[in-house]
């Protein structure tokens, strides 16, 4: 593969999605935008950046919103949420569906207690942070900074000094987009299931998916490249 072709493929492989509810905007419009984004995600997407901002709620269409959040969480490719400013209610609910959450210097996060969180959000929050801090966030509606959010597991990384979360997320997504799609998809599926399944079933699933992934060309490429001390070139699917 030529370097130019690699560059093009890598550029196309990262998709972007915005979940934004500026003050005074129609919450249904944000839900529609999320639906459109998920419906039009290119088939060859290998990593997704989700920028989340403002908030609060999905209004009367909360049920539909819950389905969309489930779809966002279940996407097979890695998802990276970028939090650069206010991130409340639905914006944080969407971020909690992502695999990596990066906070910028000005990030503030909350799930306002005045309204019920969007469907699935309570479970996702507890599974992300544990009960220790989740019920405080849920019941008091308190707002936390990026650094507090990192301590609690509400985000998983802080953007480096002088770098926005959006830029840090793009950098990470570009790296993730070069990895083996089937290895990432299997790992993600197992990790999501690990919150609720019986351990013996989980071990059986890890072995079965390990075998399935190892049988593919990308696994052979990754192991051979490591043994040969050269960078691997993984092929995208779809």
């Amino acid at each position, binding site marked *: 593969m030529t370097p130019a072709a690699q560059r093009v493929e890598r550029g196309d492989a990262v998709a972007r999605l915005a979940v934004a509810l500026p003050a005074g905007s129609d919450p249904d419009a944000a839900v529609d935008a999320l639906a459109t984004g998920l419906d039009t995600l290119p088939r060859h997407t290998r990593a997704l950046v989700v920028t989340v901002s403002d908030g609060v709620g999905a209004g009367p269409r909360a049920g539909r919103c819950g389905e969309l959040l489930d779809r966002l969480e279940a996407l097979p490719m890695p998802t990276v949420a970028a939090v650069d400013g206010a991130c409340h209610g639905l914006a944080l609910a969407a971020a909690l569906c992502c695999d990596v959450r990066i906070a910028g210097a000005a990030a503030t996060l909350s799930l306002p207690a005045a309204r019920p969180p969007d469907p699935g959000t309570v479970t996702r929050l507890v599974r992300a942070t544990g009960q220790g801090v989740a019920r405080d966030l849920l019941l008091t509606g308190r707002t936390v900074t990026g650094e507090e959010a990192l301590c609690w597991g509400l985000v998983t990384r802080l953007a480096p000094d002088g770098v926005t979360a959006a830029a840090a997320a793009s950098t990470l997504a570009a790296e993730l987009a070069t990895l083996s799609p089937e290895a990432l998809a299997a790992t993600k599926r197992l990790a999501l299931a690990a919150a609720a399944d019986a351990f013996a079933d989980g071990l059986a699933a890890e072995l079965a998916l390990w075998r399935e992934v190892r*049988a593919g060309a990308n696994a052979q490429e990754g192991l051979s490249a490591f043994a040969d001390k050269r960078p691997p070139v993984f092929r995208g699917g779809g």
Partner: protein
Amino acid sequence: MSGVALHVGGAVAELELGAPPVNAFTPAFLQAVGSAVAAVPAEVGALVVTSSVPRVFAAGGDIGYMARAELAEQTRYVQLCQDVYGAFERIAVPTVAAIDGACLGGGLELALACDVRVVAENARLGLPEATLGILAGGGAIHRLVRAVGQAPARDLLLSGRRVTGAEAVRIGLASRLTAAGEATSAGRALAATLAGLDPDALGAVKAQAWGASEPCAAPGT
């Protein structure tokens, strides 16, 4: 020469990994680890896992072997990994991993099956499998999620990122931090303390704590 030694002194057993340069988990090495756990005498009250290789706990699977071996053979190898790591959970006495250096891939899978992880500031921990086009199939995906929750787990698993000893303690991947180079002595001291406690009580608590993450777990059981 298996590269694995089991030292029994008083009430503490020490399983020492010693296969330079990186304690790579070849099938033979893993078999030796499993045999050593099975050979821990019944009167021992705690087991500590250490490494005699400087700056390395264990760097994980033997990639050269994995690149060459037949699929059926490798699947048996991953099953062996699950069995050997699980032995550190199934043994009734508390298990302590003393991590003074690189603890990657299978090395971290083994450490995650232990009850306590003591890490030095200069330790480096990670599961790089996804960056190699494979996955951590020895039970680490489930053990990591149960140890630290979804938030750090999916980040670490999908990016293959390595964390320092200090970050490992912050996210709950390890629970005790020491100065550089002092995890082994701290791990031995902890094992000696645990070995002085009531073994029946520790065994019961260990089993109950492990079971608490099962979906059927009910409060008070």
